[in-house]
């Protein structure tokens, strides 16, 4: 009996080893929900069809991924192969040595016309560790039934409680809110970070926010503002443009978008240092971030592809059949007033200004 057991175990173990040798699991960490679904459809599924020996396993724990990555590295057991992060977190992880630096032109595919990857992505490569994937924006949604015949058109309307009474929903962090407050207070957009770098500028921004403080519901999670709008709890809310798209186009709620001074931010890939399948991941990235794949992702979600060469190839939504180009935050129609998240400024000031922001909220 004992002998039989041993033989069985030996067979099982060797079968397992054979299994490992012939097929590989790549653990890809992303945000879950519609976003992971868009990546599954646009990148993972076609890649696995071309490479039957690779299996991509989705892990939906991108929220708080930097903390988890740091814990993994400290335990010397990095189990993730690829992680989806917003650019500011990628910069942080790069500083901490949690993710590897990438030679973009060597690893990634060139554009169809031969433009090298680094040039195609342009200044969206905000960190040597970061491979941009999409451009998203934090912008505004409002209830069409609560604003009368004159819908809000400018950032000033957010701060105008007489013209648009009712609650606002804003994200519970200083980023974006302070910039918007200064712009609404008359600071020219190209001077915003200069002003915000001074104590008087910070005070000015908080003073402007004070004018609506009692009418603000602060949100933490991206799912909250569309819900608050749909429930009629707030009249205007800042939200991620993709979330607003789905509540407007897919759920047909009486909500519309206001793009004035939308703030662009980036989301993309980073490769954890100490991952066990680095070569396979880089091969996957070469495919998953090429021009066609990035354009394909826009069929499933309304975020703009990060490559310049992908923009003209954006088509229709897979299920709704509507043209996706006008729903991209990068669409020229909304380009008049835009702000790009200032990574350098926020990397330095995030600790200090978050503290001020929290103190302002508490007092």
């Amino acid at each position, binding site marked *: 009996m004992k002998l039989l057991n041993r033989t069985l175990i030996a067979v099982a173990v060797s079968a397992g080893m054979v299994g490992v040798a012939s097929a590989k699991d790549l653990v890809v960490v992303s945000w879950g929900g519609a976003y992971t679904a868009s990546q599954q459809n646009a990148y993972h599924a076609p890649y696995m069809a071309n490479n039957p020996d690779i299996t991509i396993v989705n892990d939906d724990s991108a*929220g*708080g991924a*930097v*903390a988890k990555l*740091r814990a993994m590295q400290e335990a010397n057991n990095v189990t993730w192969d690829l992680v989806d992060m917003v650019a500011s977190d990628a910069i*942080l992880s*790069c*500083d*901490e*040595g949690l993710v*590897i630096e990438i030679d973009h032109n060597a690893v990634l595919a060139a554009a169809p016309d031969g433009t090298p990857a680094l040039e195609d992505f342009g200044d969206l490569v905000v960190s040597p560790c970061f491979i941009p994937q999409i451009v998203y924006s934090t912008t505004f949604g409002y209830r069409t039934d609560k604003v009368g015949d004159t819908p809000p058109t400018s950032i000033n309307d957010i701060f105008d409680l007489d013209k648009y009474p009712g*609650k606002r929903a804003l994200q*519970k962090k200083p980023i974006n809110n302070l910039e918007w407050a200064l712009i609404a207070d008359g600071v020219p957009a190209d001077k915003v970070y200069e002003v915000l770098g001074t104590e008087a500028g910070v005070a000015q921004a908080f003073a402007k926010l004070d004018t609506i403080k009692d009418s*603000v*519901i*602060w949100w*933490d*999670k991206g799912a909250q503002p569309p819900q608050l709008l749909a*429930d*009629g*709890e707030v009249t205007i809310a800042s939200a991620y443009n993709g979330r607003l798209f789905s509540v407007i186009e897919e759920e047909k709620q009486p909500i519309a978008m206001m793009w004035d001074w939308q703030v662009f931010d980036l989301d993309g890939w980073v490769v954890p*240092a*100490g991952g066990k399948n680095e070569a396979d991941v880089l091969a996957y990235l070469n495919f998953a971030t090429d021009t066609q794949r990035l354009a394909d992702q826009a069929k499933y979600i309304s975020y703009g592809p990060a490559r310049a060469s992908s923009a003209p190839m954006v088509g229709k939504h897979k299920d709704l059949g509507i043209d996706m180009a006008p729903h991209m935050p990068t669409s020229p129609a909304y380009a008049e007033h835009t702000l790009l998240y200032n990574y*350098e400024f926020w*990397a*330095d*000031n*995030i*600790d*200090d200004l*978050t*503290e*001020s922001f*929290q*103190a*302002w*909220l*508490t*007092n």
Partner: protein
Amino acid sequence: MANTTTNSPLVTVDGTPLKVSLGRAKRKAKLRALLLVAPLFAFILLTFFVPIISMLLRSVDNEVVSYTLPNTAPLLSQWDASSGEIPGEAVFKALAADFKESAEDKYDDKSAGKVGRRLNYELTGFSSMFRKTARKSKKFEPPYKEAFIKAEKKWGDPKYWQVMQREMRKATDSYYLAAIDAGYDSEGNRAFNEPGKRVYLKLFWRTFWMSGLITGLCLLLAYPVAYLLSILKSRTSNMLMILVLLPFWTSLLVRTSAWIALLQKEGVINSLLVATGMLDDANRLLMIHNKAGTIIAMVHVLLPFMILPLYSVMKTIPPSYMRAARSLGATPFTAFTKVYMPNTIPGIGAGAILVFILSIGYYITPALVGGQSGTLISNLIAYHLESSLNWGLAAALGAILLAATFALYLVYDKIVGIDNMKLG
């Protein structure tokens, strides 16, 4: 004959003294008992105490700076910070060597960016200063002083050097200072932050009084329910018990979201009040995204933790006690306060401690329904753990919370007595 037997020691059949033999048997039993608890003990030690202690140690650990800059550390300690001048070429040369080393050793814990982040907690600007310098340091040539200042002009400002010199120490108190809204001023003295920048003490205070209030409300609501459960026939009381436990089996997020749907401005309760004309449409009640929301939702979530210990204690109080008190002439009120309630104190103590300790550590519910006035200290601990990655500050805040809880526990022990607690 009788004399000799009483004087000689008692022996067992094989001749060993009884005392020795008994001792041996006892030792064996003790060893067996120890072996039985050893796995649990090891489990708790490894998965509970070790991680907590190592996390708490982070609140003072500051080794990353001197470990990543080993050449600079000894030289910089000789620099006179009060001179108003930046250090000399020798320090810059050592720093250049450290930067080069960290660039080669980036994934081995020696990241210059990490030091920049660490020092940025002390003084805004270090983060980009180290990142920019690290990028350019590969090409640095002597004289290093000029090279550094050319790469990043902040190197020419003594205030950055002052902070670096201070934080070369292996253990730091700056996380604890930050956790009580203090820090170092520009002269390097410890001082409280200006009033506009104080957060944590206020939140500690808010956390404690709100937890106290939640505990009190739970007790008020749970007491009659537990009493009812304890006196009803077991068939009915089991049915009711299921109602108490049902929310327990539902996801916390679902319960919290349900409260949002009920309490919000356009929610069920407000709409009902408006529809019945009890409330004007313009004056809908604000019951969520503020303190009220946090208190209501947390009382609901934590109620079973109060009901269950109370119920288990009340179940053991014979009804004859109350009847005896009444028959001896006590009014119902006296009988309750003098006879029944003192018997339930072990349950009250257990329930109160459970609810209070759970509520000071709560963060999901306050994050979702608390808005700006209902946020608790644990929300900021979570923020520093997950988003800002300032684990030192998170650990310091956690340690203070732990110490305050211990202090309250001691007070409780003094007043009520911990032996008097009954958990079930």
